Every structure is written in structure tokens, then in C-alpha cells.
């Protein structure tokens, strides 16, 4: 196994073992931190599919996360206030709804975004995310600016999401599944085309590939996965607001991917770990923690090529 393979295993093992240990030894706070981390890592993994492997710089990924969270919050809200049946709180309804809603949103916006390239693409993905942001703000029924409290977490027969350990377990397993899924996809024939289109779209077209369609499919898959992460996030925080979709959230997801190492399996997870831990530590010291954070971000962009995963071992992990 390669160095990077070992690092992947080590990171995942620590991530799976440490948080429950903290919880069982009377430090529930660290489990909470890890749950948030793992959920954001899923979103980062999904972003890596299009950003890292597809070369599509999407600056609106937080919109999918937010939309996924509202797919949990809105049915739960109607269940409580407008008499929707118990089905509205079922996990089997909410999670697929989150995935589906995001897939549809990705499809509709992707149809437009992917007609453009380069900097247009960056700005348009950003703009569409902002559109969803303002849309949610404008709907008073769902709390608008103030956000929405989720009174009931998604209901499953076999797992209780009110139990922090079980919620973490679900998130952790989901992260592993999403990593395996993305890895399978990028190494499949579809993934080869996606990566080829990142390297040289004209060549791919000359070979006979309709690059647009391949990218659109990848964009939809990525959006749907981020929506799933959002549904988990909603269950974790039990309070959701349009702020989750702010473009700085999208920027943070992007930063995780780049910091950890784009187009590697472990990169986004590593990036999420460093990001969340650093955020936690810095904000502990000073309310001005965004300052060193911003400087660090700039330093990473200027000086660290290939991210953390790029420091260990070569590209073929």
C-alpha cells in the first residue's frame, strides 16, 4: 500500500475511534465537534468530485447543503404546525427528499452553468447559490432570515438520531460510503471521461465524448451527495438558517478540498479535519480568529501546492 493509502486508513481510523472515546470518557463536546466535522467532510468529498476530478470550480456548494437541511426542516415544520402526517418526519422520506431536491436543483442550474466556462462558471454557481439563499430568506413561513428550529429529528426504526453516538455513527458510515462511492466513480469509465475533460475538453470532444453531458451528470451526483450531507447537518444542529448557504460557507468547503488536497481520496477529509480543528482552536483564543485564518488561507494558496495530501506521496494514491 502507498504512503497515502496508509494515511487514509490512519485518518479514518482515528476519526472513527477517538470521538466516541471522548464521549464515553465524559467529553461529549468533542463528539459534537467530530460529528460536524464528519458531516462537512461528506460535503467536501462531494465537492471534490466536480472540483478536484472534474475541474469545475463550483462556488455554490453550500446551497446544496442548505437545501438538504431544509428538506428535513420543512416537512418537520409542517408536521408540527400544519398537521402533516407522521410520514413527514420519517428519515426514509426526508433523506431521499433532500437528495432528490438537490439533484433537481443541480440539474436545473447545471444546465445553465455548464454552458459557460472559467470565471463565468465560478460566478454563476455563486449567483445561483445566492438565489436559493434569498429565496429562503423571502419565505416567512419557514422563518426567513431567522431560520427554522427542527423540533424532531429524522425518525428511523433502527437508529435514534437523538442519541449523539448513533448520529455520529450514521455520519461516519455515510462519510466512508461517500468516499468509496466517489473513488469508484472517478476510477470508472465515466470518471476517466470526467478527468479527461478536466485536462483537455477539446480533445475529449474530438474523441467523441459529449463533455457537457458528462459534466452535468457529475454535477448532479455531487449536488445530491451534498444534499445528503445537508440533511445530516440539519439533524445535527436542529436549527437551520439561510446563513448555511452563504457564499462564505461555499468558500470554506472549497478551502477544505484545496487545503487537504484536491483529487485525492483523503484530501477533503484531511482538509475538513484541519479546518474544523483550527477554527475551534483559534476561536478559543480570540474573537478575531478570522484574521489568522484568512492569512493562513492566503499562505496556503500562495505557497502550498497540491494540499496536505500532496505533501505525502505522489498523485497515484
Amino acid at each position, binding site marked *: 500500500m502507498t504512503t497515502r493509502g496508509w494515511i487514509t486508513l490512519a485518518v479514518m481510523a482515528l476519526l472513527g475511534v477517538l470521538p466516541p472515546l471522548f464521549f464515553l470518557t465524559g467529553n461529549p463536546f468533542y463528539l459534537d465537534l467530530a460529528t460536524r466535522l464528519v458531516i462537512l467532510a461528506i460535503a467536501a468529498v462531494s465537492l471534490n468530485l466536480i*472540483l478536484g476530478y472534474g475541474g469545475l*470550480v463550483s*462556488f455554490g456548494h453550500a446551497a446544496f447543503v442548505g437545501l438538504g437541511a431544509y428538506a428535513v426542516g420543512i416537512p418537520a415544520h409542517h408536521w408540527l404546525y400544519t398537521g402533516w402526517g407522521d410520514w413527514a418526519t420519517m428519515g426514509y422520506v426526508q433523506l431521499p427528499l433532500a437528495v432528490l431536491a438537490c439533484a433537481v436543483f443541480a440539474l436545473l*442550474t447545471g444546465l*445553465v452553468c455548464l*454552458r*459557460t466556462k*472559467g*470565471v*463565468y462558471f*465560478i*460566478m*454563476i454557481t*455563486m*449567483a*445561483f447559490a*445566492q*438565489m436559493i439563499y*434569498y*429565496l429562503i*430568506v*423571502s*419565505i*416567512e413561513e419557514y422563518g426567513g432570515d431567522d431560520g427554522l428550529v427542527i423540533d424532531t429529528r429524522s425518525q428511523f426504526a433502527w437508529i435514534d438520531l437523538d442519541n449523539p453516538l448513533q448520529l455520529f455513527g450514521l455520519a461516519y458510515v455515510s462519510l466512508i460510503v461517500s468516499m468509496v462511492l466517489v473513488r469508484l466513480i472517478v476510477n470508472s469509465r465515466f470518471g476517466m471521461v470526467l478527468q479527461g475533460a478536466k485536462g483537455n475538453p477539446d480533445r475529449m470532444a474530438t474523441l467523441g465524448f459529449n463533455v457537457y453531458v458528462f459534466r452535468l451528470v457529475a454535477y448532479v451526483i455531487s449536488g445530491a451527495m451534498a444534499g445528503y450531507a445537508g440533511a445530516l447537518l440539519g439533524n445535527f444542529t436542529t436549527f437551520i438558517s439561510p446563513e448555511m448557504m*452563504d*457564499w*462564505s460557507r461555499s*468558500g470554506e468547503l*472549497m*478551502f477544505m478540498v*484545496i487545503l487537504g488536497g484536491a483529487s485525492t481520496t483523503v484530501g477533503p477529509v484531511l482538509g475538513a479535519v484541519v479546518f474544523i480543528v483550527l477554527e475551534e482552536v483559534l476561536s478559543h483564543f480570540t474573537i*478575531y480568529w*478570522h*484574521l489568522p*485564518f*484568512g*492569512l*493562513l*488561507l*492566503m499562505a*496556503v*494558496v*500562495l505557497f502550498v501546492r497540491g494540499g496536505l495530501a500532496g505533501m505525502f506521496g505522489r498523485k497515484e494514491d
Partner: protein
Amino acid sequence: MDFSLLVIQGLNGLQLGLLLFLVASGLTLVFGILDFVNLAHGSLYMLGAFFCATLTYLFGNFILALIVAVPITGVIGFLVERFVARPLYARDHLDHVLGTFGLILVIDTLTHLIWGPEGLSVPLPDWLRGQITLWGDTVVPTFRLMIIGAGLAAAAGLFWMVNRTRLGMLIRAGASNRTMVSALGIDIELLFGLVFALGAAMAGLAGMLIAPITEATIGMGNGIIITAFVVIIVGGIGSIKGAFIAALLIGLIDTLGRSFLDDIFALFMSPVAAENSAPAISAMLIYIIMALVLAFRPQGLFPPKVR
């Protein structure tokens, strides 16, 4: 729909459009000439507002503060070009975006450190505080008219500079052919710095003009920057004319949409349904317009000529 409300909202839309143009013109110039995506452009808009607020207290005079604060914001822009943008020119757009995203965090936090977390209000002189009667009982605040006047003047000044002066000629040449400009023996680095400074000054001016209405607040730039993106996408990235037309279009559509969409919807649906759906649709209106424009013209309304 009453006519004087339409006029007043039309003026508000014009005002928003002009402010958008001031922000978007710098973005589109910087992108057109330097091929650089500056997310932190909104932070310069915010800095302009804070400089102007502080100087207004210092001088006791808003107009004087404005005149001094504009070049200061320009200098900040010049420094941003020198120390942040320049090392990133050779990189791809992703690095531009991430680097300037970091810069936003830095500038926002520094602003927080220097000016504190609260917004800063900007007092206006008495003569700007009143209202002007257009006819009957249709009145508009004097200051809003001043914003429109100042916005139009700045836009006209920018067009004059770009189309009539030597610097403008270099900027236009640089937008279409960078190699040629450097071949002419022009100090291209200085030119880039000046373009950045000019863009910063325009954005700063927009922040200064809006601050007396909204206060100078941290993060005020992060909302307008996305709308400015929509403007330059619709107008065609790199085109100042496109930015102007698109800015007015977006400003008017957004403002009028928010105030009249429910009335329009009520023409063909029940008043309750109109009341419920109008806010959501009007919030999305400019993005829908953007999507429509792109569906037919992926390069925007006025795509720049061969690059």
C-alpha cells in the same frame, strides 16, 4: 398601481443600478485587463464606507470626507494589487478566488478590530437631509437624488476616461491585447496597479454613497459583490458599456420587482396566491434574468471582442 410610487421606485432602482455599476465597473475592468477574479472587491466597497464615516466625524463635513476617502480607498486597491493580486496572476482562477476569499476574512476582521462590531452611521449635512417635492405630494429625499447625480457623474467620468484619455486608451488596449501594451514600452505593472486602484476607488465611492442610508457595516460588501457578479455576467465580462446597461437593468428589475410583482401577479391569480408567491419570485428575479440571458448568450449581452 399608483404613478408617483412608480416614479419613486424607479428612482430607487436607478440609484441601486448606479451603485451596482460603480462596484461592477471595477470588477469588470480588473477581470477584462488582468484576467483576475477579485472576490475581495466588496471589501473595498465596505472600506470606502468606513473611511468616509471616520473622516466625516473628523472633518465634520460629509462632502469633504467623501473627497478625501475616495483616493484613500484607491491607495488600498493599489496595495492589494501589489501584494495579493500580483503573485496570483500566473495562477488559475481557483487560486484567485481562494486567495481573495482569504483577503476578505482578513479585511473584515481588521475592520472589526479597528472600528468595532457595531455599524457606523454617517451623518449628513442639513442641506442633504431634506426632501424635494417633485409634484403634489410626491417627494424624494434630497440625498437620494445626490446619489443618483454622483453616480451618473462618476459613470460619465469613467466613460470619458476610458474613451478619451491616454490612460483609457492603454486600458482598452490592455483589455484586448496585453502583449501589445507591454510591447509599447508601457510600465504594465504600474498600469495594472492603476486599474486596480481605479476600480477600488469606484467601489469605495459606492460604499460612501450608501453609508449614510444603511450605515457602514462589516460584511456590507459581501452582499453586493454577488449582485455585481450578476451584473457583469449579464453585461459580458470585461465590457464597461455592458456593465452600465446591465447594472441599470438589474437595479430597476430588482427594485420594481420587489414593489410591484404582487400587483402584477394579482392580475392573473388570486390576491392571496400573489401575495404569497411574489416575495419568493422577486427575490429570485435577477437570477432568473441572468439564467435567461446566459441561455441565449453564454458570453453576456456585450461580449468583449477577441481576447
